[in-house]
């Protein structure tokens, strides 16, 4: 069913009894052209673009939980393309361009809101670094503005500009950045893929990968064996576990990242702001809750929950930036498992097994990348060659010395 104002009216007058399920719940077939492991944002987007851009519709997504039960439903919903390095920036800009047309394309309201993203700076050195980043963005044709203190103050008057330790001196602003209703992204891509014939198989855990004569033949699952011509892994925080089933060892560690939401407030922050002197980012959802987060907890974890020391640290960083937050009650906190790569950048590549493709290493920046990740991964699977904007996101870049180390921190996953 195509959603439109007319369909809304028609269903309203028939008592909303005729809405149909948004996707089917098919039984797995014995064989598909492509099997994608992981029914999160990236897996769903990959299936959608495989079907739409490449005409490959005999595709299954195998998901151990329910559709969108991982990080696509757990993130802080930010989108932006303010990256420094040439290996990253064109990719994230392509993602932002896809976000801009996404809702019309997949006929689903994902509440894409380009409300701007501000990265605050607090020292001369940081201003110089942000000016450099902004210039790098503009050289790639991406919008960036360097605001001074008064420029930020006119947008966010209630911040602590004269903080003795971290005075706010200005910000790098990307006006095209913003927020998206994250669950709707999973639902929109899932619905679109399903309509084009993709089987979304939920509650079906992959327990093994069958490799014969150097090729992946299919996956063993809790609902039986599913054969395939090409196998694609998009298992996010569980990438190492799934890849190990095919004998691969990845440059990935799994870490927990927490996020928080406050009680609902009247309009308070109409943009997205990140604190430059620590790691803290905040926006306000359309429901009124402040959505915010900080660093990963810093230890390897597959548990989707964090610890209180990090909660305290995140709140302190927030208070240093916005003293008024002290009177706001946090409503919920939760954790997601991040696939932290060794240089902080993702991997979209082939593997030593010719028909096995890998999509992982999103660290805690995977949400904004969802459309381009799906787009580029589908391109790789369909044509067996990398998409131009993702060509540096190779698995072998660590061995070759071509790291995309946006923060310059090296092979210490908990520092990215």
């Amino acid at each position, binding site marked *: 069913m195509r959603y439109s104002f007319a369909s809304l009216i028609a269903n309203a007058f028939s008592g909303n009894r005729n809405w149909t399920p948004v996707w089917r719940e098919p039984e797995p077939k014995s064989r598909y052209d492509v099997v994608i492991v992981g029914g999160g944002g990236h897996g769903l987007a990959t299936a959608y673009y495989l079907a739409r851009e490449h005409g490959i519709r005999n595709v299954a997504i195998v998901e151990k939980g329910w559709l969108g039960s991982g990080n696509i439903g757990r993130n802080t919903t930010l989108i932006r393309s303010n990256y420094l390095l040439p290996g990253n920036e064109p990719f994230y800009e392509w993602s932002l361009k896809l976000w801009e047309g996404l809702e019309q394309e997949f006929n689903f309201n994902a509440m894409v809101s380009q409300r701007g993203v501000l990265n605050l700076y607090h020292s001369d050195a940081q201003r110089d670094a942000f000016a450099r980043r902004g210039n790098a963005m503009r050289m790639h044709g991406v919008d960036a503005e360097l605001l001074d203190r008064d420029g930020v103050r006119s947008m966010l008057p209630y911040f602590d500009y004269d903080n003795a330790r971290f005075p706010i001196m200005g910000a790098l602003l990307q006006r095209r950045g913003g927020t998206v209703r994250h669950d709707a992204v999973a639902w929109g891509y899932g619905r679109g893929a399903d309509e084009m014939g993709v089987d979304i198989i939920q509650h079906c855990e992959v327990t093994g990968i069958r490799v014969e004569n150097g090729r992946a033949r299919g996956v063993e699952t809790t609902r039986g064996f599913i054969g395939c011509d090409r196998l694609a892994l998009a298992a996010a925080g569980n990438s190492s*576990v799934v890849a190990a089933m095919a004998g691969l060892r990845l*440059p990935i*560690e799994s870490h927990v990242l927490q996020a928080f939401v406050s009680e609902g407030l009247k309009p308070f922050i109409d943009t997205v702001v990140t604190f430059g002197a620590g790691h803290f980012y905040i926006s306000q959802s359309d429901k009124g809750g402040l959505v915010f987060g900080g660093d990963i907890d810093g230890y390897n*974890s597959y548990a989707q929950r964090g610890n209180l020391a990090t909660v305290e640290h995140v709140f302190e960083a927030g208070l240093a930036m916005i003293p008024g937050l002290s009177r706001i009650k946090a409503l919920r906190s939760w954790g997601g498992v991040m696939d932290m790569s060794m240089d902080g950048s993702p991997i979209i590549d082939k593997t030593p097994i010719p028909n096995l493709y890998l999509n992982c290493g999103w660290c805690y920046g995977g949400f904004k990348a969802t459309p381009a990740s799906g787009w580029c991964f589908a391109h790789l699977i369909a044509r067996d060659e990398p998409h131009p904007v993702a060509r540096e996101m190779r698995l072998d870049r660590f061995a070759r010395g071509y790291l995309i180390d946006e923060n310059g921190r090296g*092979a210490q*996953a908990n520092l990215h």
Partner: protein
Amino acid sequence: MASLIPCPHCGMRPKEEFTIRGAVPDDRPAWGTPIDDPQWFSAVYLRTNPRGRLREHWYHGAGCGRWLIVERDNLSHAVYDVADARTRALAGDRT
């Protein structure tokens, strides 16, 4: 993550006193291995990253100042064993 860690030197201590270096490498090259040996790439960049039982190097900065080997579960957060890394190494366990 467990809140309390039984340090072999200091007793039960809050985990905030420790710094976590990361997993003990499964395959650290032997002393003297040339730097262009692929084993180094593997030891520096690749991780087994198991779900469950894991051995890590921890540094007890706010306590005894010793490097420790902590064996814990990264799903249930149970701590199985904490040992002094140097003592282990002298006993022949160089991982």
